[in-house]
């Protein structure tokens, strides 16, 4: 899966939690949770959704590295290949 496809999966998963999100309006280099109103339960459900769709595990210790969409893409690419 290339970065563009992965980003599309991220946006789709995000929209299942926050339907008002417009993918084209999100800045990939800015903290995601400053752009989308996600509480801790939404954030957990977002990560659960990603781990189920991409068949990767996301240890809680890694959460702090996942701030921007770009962070998520880079991190998940690494998890999918290992």
């Amino acid at each position, binding site marked *: 899966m290339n970065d563009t496809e992965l980003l599309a999966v991220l946006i789709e998963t995000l929209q299942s939690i*926050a*339907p*008002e999100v417009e993918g084209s309006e999100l800045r990939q280099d800015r903290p995601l*949770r*400053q752009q989308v*109103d*996600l*509480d*801790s*339960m939404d*954030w*957990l*459900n977002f*990560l*659960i959704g990603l*781990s189920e769709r991409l068949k990767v*595990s*996301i*240890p*809680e*210790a890694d959460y702090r590295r996942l701030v921007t969409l770009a962070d998520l893409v880079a991190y998940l690419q690494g998890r999918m290949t290992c």
Partner: protein
Amino acid sequence: MFEFKLPSLGADMDEGKLLEWHVKPGDKVKKGQVVAVVDTSKAAVDVEIWQDGTVFELLVEPGTRLPVGSVMATLLEDGESAPARKPVTLQGARKGEARRKAPPPEVAAEAVGVRQAAELAPPGRPRVSPAARKRADELGRDIARIAGSGPGGVVTLADVERAVVVPTAAAAAATPAAAATRQAEMRRTIAAAMSRSKREIPHYYLFETIPLARASEWLAGVNADRPITERILMAALLLKAVAITLKGFPALNGFYRNERFEPADAVHAGVAISLRGGGLVAPALHDVDSKTLPVLMHELSDLVRRTRAGSLRSSEMSDPTITVTNLGEQGVEAVMGVIYPPQVALVGFGRVASRPVVDEVSGELRVLPAVTASLAADHRVSDGHRGALFLGALRELLQHPEDF
């Protein structure tokens, strides 16, 4: 014989609309079973029965708007046999009801209107009741596409409601116009409850910064061994800590009604849940103090999901004994809450963030995760001294999360 009345599903509710029955005459029901779905301005609520019995008569048709306290059905107690008389029809029952209870005229008018329109619709006229047409417009439904079940195939209000795939608040808000109406209604009900609170309840407010280094470490250890679907959020830990601490402070847990305080035995924490697009609901998590953290987390997750989908149970709406609001990871430092009447306290948490904290043992300044907890309480029932002891006990408990 006993009566099933429309319960008050929160201090801000004075009427509701029956969306559907889940039972029919002759059905046996158990205490706690969902027997009807009632629409309030906040959600479509599954209304539970509070006594075992057998349904005798349903007195209200789906689509009817009725005031809190209206008799909706009669039931036979276990072992009681049906009276000799034949159960009257819905309409007859409703007329009798109108004489006995005299509901507001518009309620009776709307309820009877459906049936009358259905019976009187002459051939060639649109076969649809006015109430059904109005509802279909609200829902953005094409009335011509809805099959009628009334006499002569007339489309009734019930048919329109049934045509909506899932009769929940979320579904009812499917069109922009309906969503805007619901928004306005929710704003009004929140305004009513909060105005009453500020008018009647003499609030006092206390704040305490609670170090969460131990709790965070402990939780990280617990979650490290759990799959992502079973991880526990700090929000669940804070809820449980509040509930356990409350057991020692009965003056903060219960209801102020009829000029006196009624302490509650159980701790049912109303969890303030914000809705996407605005608005707020605070349904109850039951017996929070006695549940394990994994169970509590599961129930919290389920409650948030159902609240946002607009599907709650009547007991969740009506019986929180205290409210807990958590402004969450993205929130602000502290909240000064407005008590939800007839409750007598609200506990609030701000954002968990790294703060400079002086280590009480070593005297060193360290940077540690901490949260500002606040208490808004009813001064008619408790005083600042008790409230301060509560926040102090909460702080101490959260230094020993392994004891939960």
